[in-house]
């Protein structure tokens, strides 16, 4: 990882392409920021560093999407949820590998990656969640 990696969303997705879930930690107040930002919204510090998250957490809430945007229609119906990672930050995303009727709030999920980078902006890969 380059020391010069900017605290940007672009960089967050470059790390996703490397199959890493990276956040920014404020060295002043300790807040973990995801997605990364150049300015800590808590204490306004710019003293920040990258940290790698374990990519595991618990399901906080979910839905099953039946009417989807064009890019996601091939997945319908698909599960979308918010996961609280072990480090205390939350991420939204699609959940795969589990049937809707087996979903339980509080269940453990892991992050996985779909490194399939589009040709046009934004050239970002995607992450998703699945049971361990």
């Amino acid at each position: 990882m380059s020391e010069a990696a900017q605290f940007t969303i672009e960089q967050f997705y470059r790390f996703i392409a490397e199959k890493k879930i990276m956040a920014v930690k404020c060295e002043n107040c300790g807040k973990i920021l995801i997605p990364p930002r150049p300015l800590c919204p808590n204490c306004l510090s710019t003293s920040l560093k990258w940290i790698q998250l374990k990519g595991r957490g618990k399901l906080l809430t979910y839905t099953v999407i039946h009417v989807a945007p064009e890019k996601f229609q091939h997945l319908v119906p698909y599960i979308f949820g918010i996961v609280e990672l072990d480090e205390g930050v939350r991420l939204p995303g699609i959940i795969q590998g589990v049937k809707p009727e087996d979903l339980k709030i509080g269940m453990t999920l892991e992050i996985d990656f779909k490194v399939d980078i589009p040709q046009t902006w934004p050239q970002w890969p995607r992450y998703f969640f699945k049971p361990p």
Partner: protein
Amino acid sequence: MKGRPLAAIVSAGLSKFGKRDGFSSRELFAEAVKEAFDTCPNLDPKKDIKALIVGNMSEAFEHQCHSAPIMSDWAGILPAPSVRVEVACASSGAAIRYGLFAIISGLCDVVMVGGFEKMTNRTTLEATEYLAMASDFPLEQWNGATFPALFALMATAHMHKYGTTEEQMALVAVKNHHNGTLNPKAHMQREVTVEQVLSSRIIAKPLKLFDCSLISDGASCAILTRPDIARKYTDTPVYIIGSGHGTDAIGLYERDDLTSLKATRIAAKEAYDMAGLSPKDIDVAEVHDCFTIAEIIAYEDLGFCNPGEGGKFIESGAPTLDGSLPVNTSGGLKAKGHPVGATGVAQLYEIFLQLTGQADKRQVDDCEIGLTHNLGGSGATCIVHIYRRG
């Protein structure tokens, strides 16, 4: 008397909401403006109106940015300066607030505030995509969220934490559809039953088609004046006595609480404090029922009931037309329709009718204090206003 007037509403107008084929937003705005002018003969629009603040969410629907001067022009008030404000579905709620600022600053004695959105010219797929732009792009939209999905996430969390049921959510739709049948300007003019709501097709579980508000065309406007000159224009002004604006992180995932909207609690507190009132003083309210769960959460965040008791509140009948605190007498976003940029001022329009005794078949008896609650996006913006009969 509680509540120092911040500004007076001396007139208001609303276009018919619905699928207005062949009409663009500027024509709908002119329709709303015509009503506001016709019902306020003492107003000399070209001379009196010093500014227009107009809410509109998306230029994508009509391929038209820079719409504020168009609306000034179509209202016939050029060269009145105009500006468009945008905070998603709360855009015209914000227009009211910035109209207030113009009055309170002393710069303008009379301003027009309004809102508009043309939506039904687009396919449902296009409209869904444009509306989703009000959520966070890099994490929510990019990873497959839709607008209904974000409210569905709140619904799931609310059901899990408090035991709220799909039947209770359906009751919100039943109530608002009933009220819509009493409002000739409502998009949807038909009753629905709990069974119809529950058996409608799933959009984002647990939200079904009839839990969702409508994609509509429409426009709204109101004339605000300095309180001390209001009676030059009307014998029955309505005063705005409280204004609150809460802002939170755009991403639902960034917020601590998934069952309550902090922006609403902040906006409500600011507005209640300014008015010197509490939730029990409210006689009639228009709340942002973009989805049925949003109305249930609004009951709680506005203090109409305790946290977690929104489901029981609708079950009790309290927010129905003949209940103790009628909510969304217009039919709400659910049945009156939700041309997003028009909604905030459309809510004001309904409260203006109620407090001046002009709400006809849906008139709430003896109402003196009204409230509007307008959400932007999944709740990163909330604007609350409190009104008193003059």
